[in-house]
């Protein structure tokens, strides 16, 4: 059984990569994919730290994280479909103006 | 070397190689032969009988044909994904075999080996997870073909596979609730052990929950894109599906993957509902028997169950016409899912009262089936009916028009 630190580091790297993607990409769907990557990093971290504390609470928490991710994905995709219908583009910058 | 082979790890590797190369690939090839034979018999024909005695070398000839055909890649496709899709679907259809318990335990010397490639805690979930990945081969193939019809085929197939995963999961949940474990080998041995009910019925789950068995069989057909759910590849009326742009060996891989899916699904159903390698009154297929001959017997028994189910799948294919897409979706969402939700509630209630292995289970199954049929017979939207909610495509009679009733 390997240790915890390396999993935390890998999780942090995944989280940061997701952050980079969210900040730098302009396609709405890729931005949401980036948040999902951040979720994966958090998941790895939660399970690793949960192991550190010697229980399965970390994994249970990870399961609830999955639920949140599913909820987020469903709503986000609904929103994206709606936005795409309104403007015909997936560009996030198309929605930067504060008027519908 | 012998020590390595008789350790569980080495034995698993050897078993994986044997099952994969010696059993699955040939039987996938011969599935096609038997499919053609059975279709011929049902249609009063003779079927393939030219290549070799009784046409038994036909799969070899088919394979050679796939190899020798021109491996054509259309110019407009997305090449990396186009090449990856057949590989994805083929690999995914084969890795599911790892968790199937083929033959209980095998005593070699003083070691007791499990005749199973991998024995994860979550063998059942593993198979579902792998099956849920199969949809990627379809989607990627359809999208990478850069062809409207291929993409529509992929969308149809994906919607179908995702929809039918829900009743499949509910069927499996019923089994899990009854058995109390996710390990496939434990599920098998639980069904194999114990007394016979009423003196002669083995404790197979199919006798506890026959309705779940039937629904799982139906969803397995849908997951493998078999008739009557093969809209993904309907050539006659929908100009094919996700593989219209594929040729030669790449098409062959899609083709073989369908049969590999059928075999996986059949093995899975055999383990969950038909007692796996267990056969009543045969002393070699009881859990206690661990000799070489017993293991061979057990493998033959589970193989026979798989073959029987494959036969039924082929028989159904040449009997029932294809569903229309709205009928397919209505069957899943309006019939199977409510029915299986009721089954799920039934299983929970039986488990709560500790009656989950009593005669109340099949009685409850019959009750639910009857209730579903009663509702279905009174439904305004029968599965066989015309597509609803499209009134504008019907020609309503006008005031001056002839009365249709008299005209007919």
């Amino acid at each position, binding site marked *: 059984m390997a240790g915890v630190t390396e999993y935390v580091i890998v999780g942090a790297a995944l989280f940061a990569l997701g952050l980079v993607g969210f900040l730098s990409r302009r396609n709405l769907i890729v931005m949401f994919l980036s948040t999902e990557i951040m979720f994966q990093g958090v998941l790895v971290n939660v399970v690793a730290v949960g192991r550190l504390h010697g229980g399965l609470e970390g994994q249970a928490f990870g399961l609830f994280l999955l639920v949140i991710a599913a909820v987020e994905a469903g709503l986000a995709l609904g929103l994206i479909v709606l936005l795409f219908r309104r403007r015909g583009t997936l560009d996030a910058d198309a929605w930067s103006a504060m008027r519908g | 070397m012998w020590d390595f082979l008789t350790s569980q790890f080495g034995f698993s590797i050897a078993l994986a190689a044997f099952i994969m190369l010696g059993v699955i690939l040939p039987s996938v090839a011969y599935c096609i032969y038997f499919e053609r034979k*059975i279709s011929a*018999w*049902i249609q009063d024909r003779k079927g393939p009988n030219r290549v070799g005695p009784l046409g038994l070398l036909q799969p070899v000839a088919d394979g050679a044909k796939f190899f020798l055909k021109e491996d054509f890649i259309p110019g407009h496709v997305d090449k990396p994904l186009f090449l990856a899709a057949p590989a994805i679907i083929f690999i995914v259809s084969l890795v599911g075999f790892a968790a199937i318990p083929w033959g209980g335990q095998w005593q070699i010397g003083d070691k007791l080996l499990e005749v199973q490639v991998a024995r994860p805690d979550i063998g059942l979930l593993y198979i579902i997870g792998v099956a849920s990945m199969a949809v990627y081969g379809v989607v990627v193939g359809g999208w990478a073909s850069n062809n409207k019809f291929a993409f529509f085929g992929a969308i149809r197939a994906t919607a179908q596979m995702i929809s039918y995963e829900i009743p499949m999961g509910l069927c499996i949940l019923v089994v899990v609730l009854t058995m109390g474990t996710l390990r496939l080998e434990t599920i098998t041995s639980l069904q194999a052990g114990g007394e016979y009910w009423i003196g002669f019925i083995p404790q197979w789950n199919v006798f506890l929950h026959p309705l779940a068995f039937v629904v799982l069989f139906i969803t397995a057909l849908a997951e493998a894109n078999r008739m009557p759910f093969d809209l993904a590849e309907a050539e006659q009326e929908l100009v094919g599906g996700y593989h219209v742009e594929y040729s030669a060996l790449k098409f062959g891989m899609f083709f073989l993957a369908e049969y590999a899916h059928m075999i996986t699904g059949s093995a899975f159903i055999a383990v969950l509902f038909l007692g796996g390698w267990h056969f009543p009154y045969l002393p070699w297929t009881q859990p206690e028997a661990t000799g070489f001959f017993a293991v061979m017997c057990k493998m033959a028994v589970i193989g026979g169950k798989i073959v029987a189910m494959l036969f039924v799948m082929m028989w159904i294919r040449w*009997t029932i016409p294809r569903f229309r897409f709205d009928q397919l979706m209505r069957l899943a969402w309006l019939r199977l899912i409510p029915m299986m939700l009721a089954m799920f509630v039934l299983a929970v209630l039986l488990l709560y009262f500790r009656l989950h292995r009593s005669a109340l289970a099949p009685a409850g199954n019959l009750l639910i089936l009857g209730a579903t049929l009663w509702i279905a017979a009174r439904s305004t939207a*029968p599965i066989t009916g*015309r597509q609803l909610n499209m009134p504008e495509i019907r020609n309503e*009679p006008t005031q001056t028009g002839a009365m249709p009733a008299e*005209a007919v």
Partner: protein
Amino acid sequence: MIKDEDILNIEEPVLSAAERLYIPQILGGLKITIGHLAKSLTKSTVTIQYPEEKLEVRKEVYRGVHRLNRDENGRVACVACFMCSTACPADCIHIEAGDSPWDDREKYPIKFDLDELRCIFCGMCEEACPVDAIELTHEYDLVGRTREQMILDKEELLAIYDRTVQDKPRKNPRITGYAGTGNRPSAAPKTDGPEAS
């Protein structure tokens, strides 16, 4: 614009309870197919093993590959009158006529090519022929490796006659349906073909 009285509304048939449930229908279908399967396994099927067994065609209606007949002296019976190539709707007969070396006719075909790939096997040529020189036999295994091989010349057509000399092609107006309908092509003279066997 379709007139309203031309529109025929066909109502969807009312389904019986069994049909609405779908399951009894499926079981019935499965019973039928397994019956056929059992029948195929126990009794022989209707399939004919083609290259070994030949299909018996119905001689009174079947029109296969053509032949060029010989007369009683063994010469080609054709007089190169071009009736057949004129009558041919598919335009598949090519004749080159030459002065006949024999006394009883003026012309004979130097070349007689028949493109079997263009031919639609309508039988007009044999109806048109004034001397019954071209006829359609009952041979159906007409194959070739190239398109050129499927263009039969005079020698090949005569060879087919030699092969099928016992064969009596069917040219009965009762069956071809020309007699009595009043719209029989006038170009085709009445021929008294051999009666059907």
